[in-house]
């Protein structure tokens, strides 16, 4: 599929000179979206923009997620850099700002940013200057299969505390149902457990203190306890056989096939489980439930706190001003409502979430709206190196090759070394 698209892009690139002759400005837009349905909608958005702005041509190109991360430093420092790039905010954004490869778009965006979710805009602000516009947010929580839960006599809507989750795992195992599926080979699906526990145990204060190196930093009690509680879950052997060999898409497909009762999911898996299921249909809306990551006894985090992603578009240094106009258009009410209607994203434009078609997605939007502390993914927020060490050590805890204490120390060591 992606090869076909690459061929198409190559063909489009060959056909380009004819268009360039007519267009005055070309805006090069690099995205990492692999879902063809969504890419099609983005192409429509680009066409709409072109129609409204004669003389501007949006040129889309695609890089696969991991390839994009590997190529970004070289790409951004070349003269051929794209004008608009994808971003998860966080540490990578900060190092790009430090390197001076991004355009300060504070003035270009102006008052428009007031329409977007403040937490998400804040994630794209470095040292008081705005470098990008967020177009979607997501939440991490448990997606569950209602039929399998019923089979084991578990009520998903009643799971609120950590012990409820542990009970549910035990009951599911007793009923011969695989309790949880996880893409352990990719590591980051496992880091969601550890980081969600840290959010519940330490709250925003715990994370901020660790960043400043207080309370032992990431080696402190909050993070050791996160590891220990994760270990408690691991000791119940809740995951599918061979979970360390599963990549995330396989795991999501496994859930979509109805072979496991739960998956600690990014809210966007609501869509991907259908696309990745063997029958391409997956679980229908009435079979899928959601509960937030359970609370922990004595935890300092507010039960409404959320962990999730904030994704947006950055404008690179020297890009034409039309690039800013385009990302403003992309995050405008009209476009955001359209994307929301298809349930593709949780929009950042305030009020656009009312356009969300499914109750599932409306619930996620509500959770994020009422959350006072929305923690960005650790592996993005802490930057490319420290973030991946978090992924490494949580996978090691899950595999039983590292103690929670040693894991916390490894993260702190990496944090001191820096990115």
């Amino acid at each position, binding site marked *: 599929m992606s090869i076909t698209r690459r061929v198409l892009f190559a063909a489009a690139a060959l056909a380009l000179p004819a268009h360039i002759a007519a267009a005055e400005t070309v805006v090069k837009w690099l995205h990492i979206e692999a879902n063809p349905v969504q890419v099609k909608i983005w192409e429509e958005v680009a066409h709409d923009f072109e129609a409204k702005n004669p003389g501007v041509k949006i040129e889309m190109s695609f890089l696969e997620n*991991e390839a994009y*991360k*590997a190529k970004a*430093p*070289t790409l*951004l*420092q070349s003269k051929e850099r794209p004008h608009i790039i994808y971003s998860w905010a966080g540490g*990578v954004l900060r*190092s*790009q700002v*430090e*390197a*001076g*490869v991004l355009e300060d778009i504070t003035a270009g965006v102006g008052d428009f940013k007031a329409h977007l979710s403040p937490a998400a805009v804040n994630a794209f602000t470095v040292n008081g200057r705005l470098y990008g516009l967020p177009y979607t947010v997501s939440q991490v929580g448990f997606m569950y299969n209602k039929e399998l839960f019923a089979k084991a006599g578990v009520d998903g809507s009643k799971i609120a505390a950590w012990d409820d989750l542990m009970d549910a795992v035990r009951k599911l195992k007793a009923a011969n149902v695989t309790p949880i599926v996880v893409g*352990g*080979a990719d*590591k980051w699906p496992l880091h969601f457990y550890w980081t969600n526990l840290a959010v519940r145990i330490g709250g925003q204060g715990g994370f901020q203190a660790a960043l400043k190196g207080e309370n032992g930093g990431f080696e402190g009690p909050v993070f050791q306890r996160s590891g220990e509680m994760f270990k408690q879950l691991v000791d119940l052997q809740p995951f599918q*056989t*061979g*979970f*360390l*060999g*599963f990549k995330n898409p396989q795991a999501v497909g496994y859930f979509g096939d109805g072979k496991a009762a739960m998956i600690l999911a990014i809210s966007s898996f609501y869509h991907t489980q259908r696309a990745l299921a063997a029958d391409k249909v997956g679980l229908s809306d009435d079979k899928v439930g959601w509960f937030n990551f359970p609370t922990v006894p004595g935890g300092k985090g507010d039960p409404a706190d959320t962990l999730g992603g904030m994704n947006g578009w950055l404008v690179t240094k020297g890009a034409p001003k039309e690039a800013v106009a385009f990302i403003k258009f992309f995050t405008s009410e009209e476009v955001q409502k359209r994307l929301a209607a298809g349930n593709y994203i949780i929009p950042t434009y305030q009020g656009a979430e009312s356009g969300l078609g499914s109750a599932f997605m409306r619930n996620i939007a509500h959770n994020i709206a009422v959350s006072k502390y929305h923690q960005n993914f650790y592996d993005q927020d802490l930057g*490319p*190196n420290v973030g*991946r060490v978090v992924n*490494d050590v949580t*996978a*090691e805890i899950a*595999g039983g*090759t*590292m103690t929670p204490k040693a894991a916390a120390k490894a993260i702190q060591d990496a944090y001191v*070394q*820096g*990115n």
Partner: protein
Amino acid sequence: MLFLPPAVLLFTLFVVMPAGEAGWYSAFNWNGFGRPTRWIGLDNYRYVFENRAFGIALWNNVLVIAVSLVVQLPLALTLAVILAERFRGAVALRLVFFLPYILAEIATGMIFSFVYDGNYGLLTAIWGWFGAEAPHLLASPATAMPAILVVIVWKYFGFHMMLFIAALQGMDRGVIEAARIDGATGWQLQRHVVLPLLYPTIRLSIFFVVVGSLQLFDLVMPLTRGGPADASHTIVSFLYTFGVMRMRVGFGSAVGVILFVICATFAFTYKRWFMRDE
């Protein structure tokens, strides 16, 4: 003398300068953006040696060499001795054994990741015939590397076999005839006449085994990407995963320099000690 400058220029441009640059970068904490400015001396080397996964990677490279020497070369040698004779089907069998070598490494890795798949794989089906539940070989730190070693032996024994067959066929039949007339029989002939005549080829094979192990990357990535829990990394996959993917150019350069030192040391000493006659 006239032909020296172009060669020196190319060597400088594509070997000496990149190696020197890597050495320079390895002294910085640098993420690849802008110019390297945070000088940290030899700290990157310390981080490399302190990294648990690097130890595993180094050990895995040794393991690949050991298994190649103990399993792969004897297997290749035995088959070569049998297939060097002219009989019906010998050529066809040579081709069959050589085929895995022709296959691209990435393709091989993908194919075997399907073979090993614990849910749908070929191995799972075979296990199923005996009513047993198949192990997820690539999903367990204990079995991932052995599973990769099997693929390596399968893929490369044909190449070494071909080297040996070529050497056997180029051998002076007169020497063997003379030994026969002197009364040497089967095993004696192989052990005391043929094998010594193969030593130069065996030394070459060992050279390829070691160099191949140090380069091993494209087979590991599609199979395990170095996992689970970093159990199946090689030096190069370690460099890629921990240096390139994490934007730690300084750290990755340090690994590159270490790899370069290992390669250069091996190449020079091996040539000096074992291949000086050739």
